[in-house]
């Protein structure tokens, strides 16, 4: 298997300046290592505050690590599936789809070529030419999701957005994601839901308090993760 991204002992800390002489240092990631291979679907699991979102930002190049390193093979295009990137509420869905696609790093013509597919997938119908501010939040989310999903980067990063839209749309997105997995799309999925990771991923990394604790086959990692918390909650009940 070819390696796509290798994360080696990555650490990130944010310093937040409170005033002229005071600043707080907040460690978001301490020591995270794992490998991502082509065609992999890697689940990153951890509780709230484990550093999952920071890790995704690191992977798509928004920030750089303070310690350790990230090696991305031959300039792969890594994109975060972010919903509604740069949406302007006063403009139509069509304009926003183009804008959003361009912000995600695609050429205008690429986005326009895919526009029909995007509109179809988002199930917006005539609403596509109405201002986005008239949309329901579900419609907005669907449009954002459709843009991000229809333009396939080399590596797709997903941050728990599967709870988008109504049940039917969710099912449809799940189906598309699964298809992407089978079609050799490389995916990193971040979630605190063991069930989601189990359903969509073949490998997993468990992150706890900014450290990667375990990496491997999805069933092993999720098994350990669930056991750990089962034990913990038993202890809490007993106490």
């Amino acid at each position, binding site marked *: 298997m070819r390696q796509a991204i290798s994360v080696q002992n990555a650490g990130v800390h944010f310093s*937040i300046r409170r005033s002229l002489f005071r600043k707080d240092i907040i460690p978001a990631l301490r020591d995270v290592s794992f490998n991502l291979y082509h065609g992999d679907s890697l689940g990153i699991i951890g509780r709230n505050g484990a550093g999952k979102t920071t890790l995704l930002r690191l992977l798509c190049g*928004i920030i750089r690590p303070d310690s350790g390193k990230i090696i991305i093979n031959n300039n792969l295009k890594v994109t975060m599936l*972010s919903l509604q*990137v740069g949406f302007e509420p006063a403009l139509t869905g069509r304009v926003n789809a183009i804008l959003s696609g361009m912000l995600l790093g695609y050429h205008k013509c690429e986005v326009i070529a895919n526009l029909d597919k995007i509109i179809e997938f988002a199930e917006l119908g005539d609403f596509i030419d109405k201002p986005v501010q008239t949309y329901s939040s579900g419609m907005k989310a669907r449009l954002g999701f459709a843009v991000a999903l229809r333009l396939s980067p080399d590596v797709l990063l997903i941050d728990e957005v599967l709870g988008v839209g109504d049940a039917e749309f969710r099912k449809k997105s799940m189906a598309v994601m699964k298809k992407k997995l089978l079609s050799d799309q490389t995916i990193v999925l971040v979630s605190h839901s063991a069930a989601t990771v189990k359903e969509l991923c073949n490998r997993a990394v468990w992150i706890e308090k900014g450290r990667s604790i375990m990496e491997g086959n999805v069933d092993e990692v999720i098994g350990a993760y669930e056991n750990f918390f089962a034990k913990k909650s038993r202890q809490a009940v007993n106490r």
Partner: protein
Amino acid sequence: MNNLPAIRQYSDLILVKVAANLRSETSGNYLGYLWWIFEPALRMLVYYLVFGFLLRRGTDDYVLFLLTGLIPCIWFTRSVAGSMISIIQGKGLMMQVHLPKIILPTIRICQDAVKETVVIILLFIFLLLYGVSPSLPWFALPVMFVTEFLLIAASAYIISAVIPFFPDLRIIVPVGLQMIMFCSGTFYSIDMIPAQYHRLFLMNPVASLLHNYRNILLYNQWPDWNSLLFITAGSLVAIYVMWLVFRRLDHFYPRITL
């Protein structure tokens, strides 16, 4: 360098985003694009009423004198003030996608430049109505606009790059801009200050630009090419340096604007 396609990609993005912002800005009010004309026209009317009608300051030409200075000066101060917080405002965006951050102030100054075009056309109409006849030196005006645009870009890049580090400057910058406005001879001519200060006065690039605008529009003189060259060259150097600075800080801004 293999970043030529990237540059094209990003300049396309800037164009689309500028168009989108302008459209979105105007869609909030009933008269839409008409405000691009009404707002500056009203502004000119205010100055006409106060200086041309109420105060009857000096000669009749004072209104012309005022407008030919005020309009380019307002372009500068507005554009710089507007792009000041462009990096901070782009926080949501830069947490979602990786973008060269220099794009954010660029979008803002391009947006203002488009609106300024309308104002300048209005100014021409006003000048013609007032009986000023175009002359050969008017051909130098495009050079003036380009020079001023570069000066705005250089100032906007420097200020928007610094503000995320020292957010308190947001309070100082408008004061500074007001000072530039008053020190650039918007309301008075260079002849009103002592001759020994003329050199010092014209070292302020905005003052020098306004002086040249007036020489062209009101006195049918060619601009002082040396000073234009100096401003253009200085601005280009500053823009290049800021481009390097932004490239260095690209991954840093998302952290501090957290």
